[in-house]
């Protein structure tokens, strides 16, 4: 607390019950021009269907992610947000029994094509997880790990580590203890370390799966600020179940819900509405979106 007096005082710790538009305004982003459709999309999902064994988890999702935009995926728990996100860098390959139908393109290439290397995909499209998951190594080695394993050409690893930590707004806090274990950091710092670790491999797109759900409000707001800064350099896709967070940081929002199958009763996730965040929150086109946004669970 004492190390970040500015953060603590300018931003109330808990922002519940405040108007969404006001909070968006806090970042000074109210004036940001968000085009009607995603500008030169970096990634697109086309008729994406995901199955876990026989279970149809996600049905026919079409999405497009604009360059240097933040896209939020929101919706009730279990509607397939994480599943969709994991499809975007082929992390679903690692889930036994998972099967993906449809296409996910990255700069026009289908990343599920036969000749595509999932490892190459993951070096371009990084991922930050729900629970901070630093490696049981030093802070320095956490950052250096990605460049080392991917065989990135690095002139000076020290510089790269500093650059990545600067990029994740963590440098000042850890520059004197780079050789110490990452486990000594607070939860919020660990999560920013994971972001720094991802940045270090110089990705193009960063996927974040509820990156703040394990963090306290102060740590959360620091990560939100960080995302807004990173937007200039990366395309960011974030899953969140916190609607205010989506409203605060994202340019565009996709709302998912789950619909039970008539015969099996399995809840299959589907995309309800995808629009500029301001539209989704101010005048949603779909009744289900409106119910969800206003807290009436649909």
């Amino acid at each position: 607390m004492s190390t970040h007096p500015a953060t603590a005082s300018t931003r109330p710790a808990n922002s519940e019950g405040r108007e969404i538009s006001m909070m968006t305004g806090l970042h000074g982003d109210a004036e940001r021009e968000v085009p009607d459709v995603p500008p030169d999309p970096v990634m697109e999902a086309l008729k994406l269907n995901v199955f876990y064994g026989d279970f149809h988890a996600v049905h026919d999702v079409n999405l497009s992610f604009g360059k240097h935009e933040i896209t939020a995926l929101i919706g009730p728990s279990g509607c397939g947000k994480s599943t969709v996100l994991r499809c975007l860098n082929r992390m679903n390959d690692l889930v036994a029994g998972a099967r993906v139908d449809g296409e996910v393109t990255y700069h026009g290439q289908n990343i599920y094509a036969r000749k595509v290397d999932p490892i190459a995909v993951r070096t371009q499209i990084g991922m930050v997880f729900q629970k901070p998951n630093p490696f049981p190594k030093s802070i320095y080695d956490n950052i250096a790990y990605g460049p080392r394993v991917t065989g990135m050409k690095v002139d000076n690893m020290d510089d790269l580590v500093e650059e990545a930590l600067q990029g994740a707004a963590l440098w000042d806090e850890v520059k004197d203890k780079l050789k110490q274990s990452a486990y000594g950091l607070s939860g919020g710092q660990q999560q920013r370390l994971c972001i720094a670790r991802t940045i270090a491999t110089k990705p193009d797109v960063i996927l974040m799966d509820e990156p703040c759900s394990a963090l306290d409000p102060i740590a959360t707001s620091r990560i939100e600020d960080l995302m807004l800064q990173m937007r200039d350099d990366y395309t960011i896709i974030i899953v969140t179940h916190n609607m205010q967070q989506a409203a605060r940081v994202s340019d565009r929002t996709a709302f998912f819900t789950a619909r039970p199958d008539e015969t099996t009763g399995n809840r299959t996730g589907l995309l309800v509405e995808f629009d500029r965040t301001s539209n989704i929150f101010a005048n949603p086109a779909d009744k289900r979106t409106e119910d969800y946004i206003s807290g009436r669970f649909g």
Partner: protein
Amino acid sequence: MSTISSTGAGPPFGAGLPAAPDLRKKARPLETVIRTILMVSAFLSVAITVGIIFALIRPVIDFFAEVPFGDFFATEGTHAVLPLVGGTLMTTVIALLVAVPLGLGAAMYLSEYASRRARRVLKPTVELLAGVPSVVYGFFALSFVTPTLLQDILSLEVGFTNALSAGLVLGVMVIPTVASLSEDALTAVPQSMRQGSMAMGANRMQTTLRVVLPAALSGVAAAVVLGMSRAVGETMIVTLASGNLKNLSADPREDMQTMTGFIATTAGGENAVGSTSYNELFAVGMLLFLLTLVINVISIALVRRFRQVY
């Protein structure tokens, strides 16, 4: 807020990427080689089982070329195996009579009565028994159980070696096997079943015996069956303490050679490779392997069934 924006004002980072990065598959020879090595290592475990069968089968075929089947599966005669099976059966039954009640009792105490902390100390203590080498147990049977316990204290008419002494000590050795697996099974029974029983007014003993034990039955059965496998396959205790006499008898006070005892004694003596007695070693070994295989498969199946329930 100010701290954050000032620290973040580094040079643009990650910008200016090529529009269409190369995603094509790269050859990773090291990865392939290592994966193959690991896979071969894993398949080697299957090769071991196949190897056991192959190792045994040649001498077994040679053996049955010289000794008719009927002479082997006979109750009497130089090559009769049934007295050995009887000896194994006798020592195993005695062992289970010791190990099942005591092992199960220990398991019930550990899972139903002991505090978490007590269990952490007591369980390894019980398992210590499994760490004692069997040759030490065999020596103990000869130097203490037979002379002091059986002859002096219980005044039984037994000789230096006898099936009873071997079986009793064998039982002690098997206790941890039964206790450990039973305890796992009992602990896996959901807490809600105990709460339900106690809510209906049952006390702990009733809950343990009428609710938890029946619910864990197939797991406990697996433990008993695995204990049986251990008793059948154990060698040194019976070699030392049960005697070297092929003896089909129902009197545990007599000497009785077991299958494992026969293999150890015969192998320890002078037998030319390829001689009938050398081959007989493998014939008995094959029978022992198949017998324990069947027992093990039953135990594994029981565990599977138990796991499916919980």
